[in-house]
């Protein structure tokens, strides 16, 4: 195999693995948007908050990683309950933009509280995930870290679990009912408030997973919350309500971004990954306004 082909493969795999991370964050967005129509801007900060809590618990209490993870899950569920209690409950039936703004407010609160509790310095996160290059691939001349593979596997497992949760369990079906039609769901006796606590908990846990993966590779710091911004183009591409859309969209964005950086970067300047994903998503929308998996909407009057 030629070097350039090997390089291409390495770049592509790197892109796919980065894409998995985007998918994870996008998944958190989609879960909440589907169930409550809220564009949760705090999703990225939730990942940061979860990772900060995890590191804090491990450092301050000295507990083993798995105990700390369980405790953090507890914290995220508590957080979901608090958010429903203190914020969402009071904002039922408001315009989507008001709810969106409230989640930005929430992002500020989580960021401030996280920093106040655990400090704002960069922290290393080590929950015992393997590190270093994958040997047999390295021998072929392709550099892929074990952590990235674990992240991909975890994401795949998480998606599978969520799929089963939504398709097979009673709560999952209730969630889908709420997503389809709030009023109808209420009329058959599904409690909206319980549902909201559940989806926010689930996205809190998804955020924790994203936080662990991201934090393990580049440390827990404020910039972690910015991965949320990277996940947003995924939403345009895949649609705000489609779980497969979030996954495929994430992969497309991840790969497209890496290709662009490597093969276009020389011509138009580097560090384009901040905006390239957006342009990619927009260009796609111009061709297919309903997104990857959306159906064409027939407007009625």
């Amino acid at each position, binding site marked *: 195999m030629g070097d350039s082909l090997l390089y291409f493969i390495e770049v592509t795999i790197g892109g796919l693995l980065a894409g998995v991370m985007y998918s994870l964050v996008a998944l958190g967005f989609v879960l909440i948007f589907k169930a409550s129509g809220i564009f949760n801007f705090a999703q990225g900060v939730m990942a940061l908050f979860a990772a900060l809590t995890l590191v804090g618990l491990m450092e301050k209490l000295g507990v083993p990683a798995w105990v700390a993870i369980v405790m953090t899950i507890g914290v995220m569920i508590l957080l979901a309950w608090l958010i429903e209690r*203190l914020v969402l409950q009071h904002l039922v039936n408001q315009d989507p933009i008001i709810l*969106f*703004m409230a989640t930005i407010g929430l992002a500020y609160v989580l960021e401030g509280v996280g920093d106040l509790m655990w400090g704002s310095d960069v922290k290393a996160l080590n929950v015992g995930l393997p590190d270093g290059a994958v040997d047999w691939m390295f021998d072929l001349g392709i550099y892929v870290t074990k952590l990235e593979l674990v992240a991909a596997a975890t994401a795949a497992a998480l998606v599978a679990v969520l799929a089963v949760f939504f398709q097979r369990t009673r709560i999952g079906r209730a969630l889908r009912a709420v997503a389809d039609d709030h009023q109808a769901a209420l009329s058959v006796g599904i409690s909206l408030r319980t549902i909201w606590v559940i989806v926010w908990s689930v996205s809190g846990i998804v955020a924790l997973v994203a936080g662990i993966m991201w934090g393990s590779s580049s440390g827990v710091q404020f910039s972690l919350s910015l991965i949320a911004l990277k996940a947003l183009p995924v939403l*345009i591409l895949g649609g705000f309500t489609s779980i497969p859309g979030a996954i495929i969209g994430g992969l497309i964005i991840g790969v497209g971004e890496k290709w662009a950086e490597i093969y276009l970067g020389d011509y138009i300047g580097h560090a384009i990954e901040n*905006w390239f994903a957006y342009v990619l998503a927009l260009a796609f929308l111009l061709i297919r306004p309903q997104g990857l998996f959306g159906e064409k909407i027939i407007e009625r009057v």
Partner: protein
Amino acid sequence: MLYREAGQFKTGYNTDQSIFPIRQDRWAIALFLAVAVVAVPLVIDDYWAKAVLLPLLVYAMATLGLNILVGYCGQISLGTGGFMAVGAFASYKLTTAFPDLNLIIVLLLSGCVTAAVGVLFGLPSLRIKGFYLAVATLAAQFFLVWLFNKVEWFYNYNATGQITMPPREVFGFLITGPEATPAATYLFALGFLIVFGLVAKNIVRGRVGRMWMAIRDMDIAAELIGVRPLMAKLSAFAVSSFYVGVAGGLYFTVWFGAVEVTEAFDINQSFQVLFMVIIGGLGSILGSFLGAAFLVLMPILLKNFMVNWLGVAAVTAKHVEITLLGVLIIFFLIVEPHGFARLWQILKEKLRLWPFPY
């Protein structure tokens, strides 16, 4: 008892459609303007100008602009920071290329440049709506900041990547640069705000404003009665970006004097202005002023209170400030999602009947 409109008769559609149909309102606004134009410049010092009043004026301008787009035309934009950067860099390039050009002209032209850029990034609004559009406008935010950071032409190839405003005079008064007096910079910015506040009000109460609101409230019906979505949306993007661009220009020329794009115009800037719009009141000119004032003044008060009174360390105070800001925003959204403008309206209704509400 003082606030009554009884006995004030309208004699034509003209008077019925004036901005302040009630006489007491006209007096109040005249008094307020007199204080702002005459009294404030007499007592203003550097701290008040740079920390309080200029931020207030600049953000009020940006908020007006964003409110036109979000509040009146219903198109959510998260690219305000990027558009402010366009205004700042346009005024820098213009004033360094044509040192003799009057600063007022420079800022107006910068607004026009930003309007053109705004129209370009507003094009997706013709096909996508709501949060999809909001996310799309983030493209503008990131792309523009990247552009001004990467392309050296924009900062005249200097080594730091920073742009610095050279001293400029307007009508014989020094307005920019470190030597400019606080009163001069303040009055310059205030002049812009008064003129363009009035202009904004005029636009939104006329045909164009109604066109925007029609698109906002029901775009399909608007099209069926002859409003062209293309024209309405793009004109909103243009006018809105003009304001935001002028705000960015003022931010750079008279307020900071020197900026670095990635610090000054990052995404938090976009959110900040959007908060001002929401807290002030969507679709309200007065609300734009109130929202900007609230979010400029509140952090200053919080910080002073914590650092000077409670003796909290500055770093901790910063974290507490962010937290409290978040809490306050959520609290405010819960208590009055329609913003200060609605509160003001309710207050006026009460005042009209006071002290005999029944």
